[in-house]
């Protein structure tokens, strides 16, 4: 075990020496990896922040059921009873046409209300539904529309659903971008290791003659790519934090203009770890493929 650890520590030392031997080249490679990873990471965090904002604004989705203007008390009672008996419905709140008018007045439209010859608002029910499956809202809405005395059913969360759909689309786009950039990083690492194998051809051949095993020769290349990936991941984190820092103030100003308080969140500990780990994995994958392709031929 200690021998295995010693060999890995030595390989890591060799990899660090190779990184340090070409500081400019190493820094440029790390920056390329960092920027490539920062793009999808920023996209992911931006979408997550928007989703958080949308969830906070929408709260529990509601359905408003408006009755006909001439609906009698018997119709109101019947609708109330049917809603209470419906297994999908979680809460029911009746808003009489008089209460609705008062709410309209309180919202700052008292001048408009006073100018009206009569109350134009119908009696209504505000319903919340168990669960958050959009299909339940649709089914309930379609069912209620057929009831006697019901004039109109409005799904108050429709815009949230549309936003969620848009967010899902954007998430898929970010995922596709992440996959493309990850592939690009694997290709970059593949080529970097290929060039290293070419420049160290003599050392590899000498080591083989002296009894070096395949893992002994491959290890420094794996470590080099992993370390480069880790440094690239850290660079990506720094870039993400810079972007979040730049956007923080304008976002807070925008939220304040709508009377809200909203702070952009950066990557948490697990997300930061996942980003760096993913970068290291991509480095390892690129080097493993390159070593398999270019070194095996030289080893025999």
């Amino acid at each position, binding site marked *: 075990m200690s021998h295995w650890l*010693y060999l890995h520590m*030595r390989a890591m030392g060799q990899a660090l020496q190779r990184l340090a031997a070409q500081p400019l080249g190493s820094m440029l490679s790390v920056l390329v990896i960092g920027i490539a990873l920062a793009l999808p990471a920023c996209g992911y965090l931006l979408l997550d922040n928007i989703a958080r904002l949308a969830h906070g604004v929408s709260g529990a989705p509601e359905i408003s059921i408006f009755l006909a203007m001439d609906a009698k008390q018997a119709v109101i009672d019947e609708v109330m009873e049917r809603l209470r008996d419906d297994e999908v419905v979680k809460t029911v709140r009746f808003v009489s046409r008089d209460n609705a008018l008062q709410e309209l007045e309180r919202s700052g439209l008292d001048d408009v209300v006073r100018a009206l010859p009569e109350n134009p608002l119908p009696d209504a029910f505000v319903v919340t539904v168990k669960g958050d499956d959009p299909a339940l809202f649709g089914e309930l809405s379609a069912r209620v529309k057929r009831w006697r005395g019901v004039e109109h059913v409005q799904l108050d969360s429709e815009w949230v659903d549309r936003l969620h759909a848009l967010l899902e689309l954007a998430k898929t786009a970010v995922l596709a971008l992440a996959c493309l950039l990850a592939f690009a990083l694997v290709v970059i690492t593949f080529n970097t290791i290929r060039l290293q194998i070419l420049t160290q051809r*003599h*050392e590899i*051949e*000498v080591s083989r*003659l*002296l*009894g070096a095993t395949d893992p*002994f020769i491959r290890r420094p290349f794996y470590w080099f790519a992993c370390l480069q990936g880790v440094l690239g991941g850290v660079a990506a984190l720094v870039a993400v934090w810079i972007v979040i820092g730049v956007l923080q103030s304008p976002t807070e100003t925008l939220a304040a203009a709508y009377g809200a308080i909203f702070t952009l969140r950066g990557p948490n500990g697990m997300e930061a770890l996942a980003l760096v780990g993913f970068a290291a994995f991509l480095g390892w994958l690129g080097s493993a493929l390159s070593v398999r392709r270019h070194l095996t031929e030289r080893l025999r």
Partner: protein
Amino acid sequence: MIVFEHVTKRYPGGYTALADVSFTLRHGELAVLCGHSGAGKSTLLKMIAAIERPTRGRVLINGQDVSRLKPSAVPYLRRSLGLVMQDNRLLHDRSVFDNVVLPLVITGHPPKEAARRAAAALERVGLAGRGNERPIGLSGGEQQRLAIARAIVNRPSILIADEPTAHLDNAYAVEISRLFKSFNAAGVTVLVTTHDAALFMTNRPRRIILDHGKLVVGDGA
């Protein structure tokens, strides 16, 4: 012990480097492998180190059939050999010490023990105190001695060298030949290819002479 049993090596294209070569080199023997350029000397040494495989026949090193060795077992065979190649194969971007210590690093010796043995090997070939220099700063004879130090640092039971005295003036060549003879006196089996067998004659070594891939003199093979 090195045993060649009816070994033939034919390269793609039809060139035959070795043809039905058989000989035995016993433990602790010193043998000089002679022949003209292209006689098959280097090919024969490469077969001992499993760099080349025979087309026919068997090569046995300490009882192990090298011709059937799995690729994963080849490094372990090479660790039991001391190899001095014709062009030395030194790493010129490393120090003298780093060159000598490399076989010990490969075999996983602890750093302190490796440093001690590398220093001893350098002393043995007369390069003590030159560890921090680069090989490029050494003379031809010193580079050859450095290659020998690297070959013996793992204390091999068999030492093979391909033209270790080529390109050296007579004084250096004599010095190098003395080194090989001293290793042999310490019990190491030594096989050296050379154009100048006279350098090793004081120890009355075995002579193995190749001519166009065929063994013409085996001295008791």
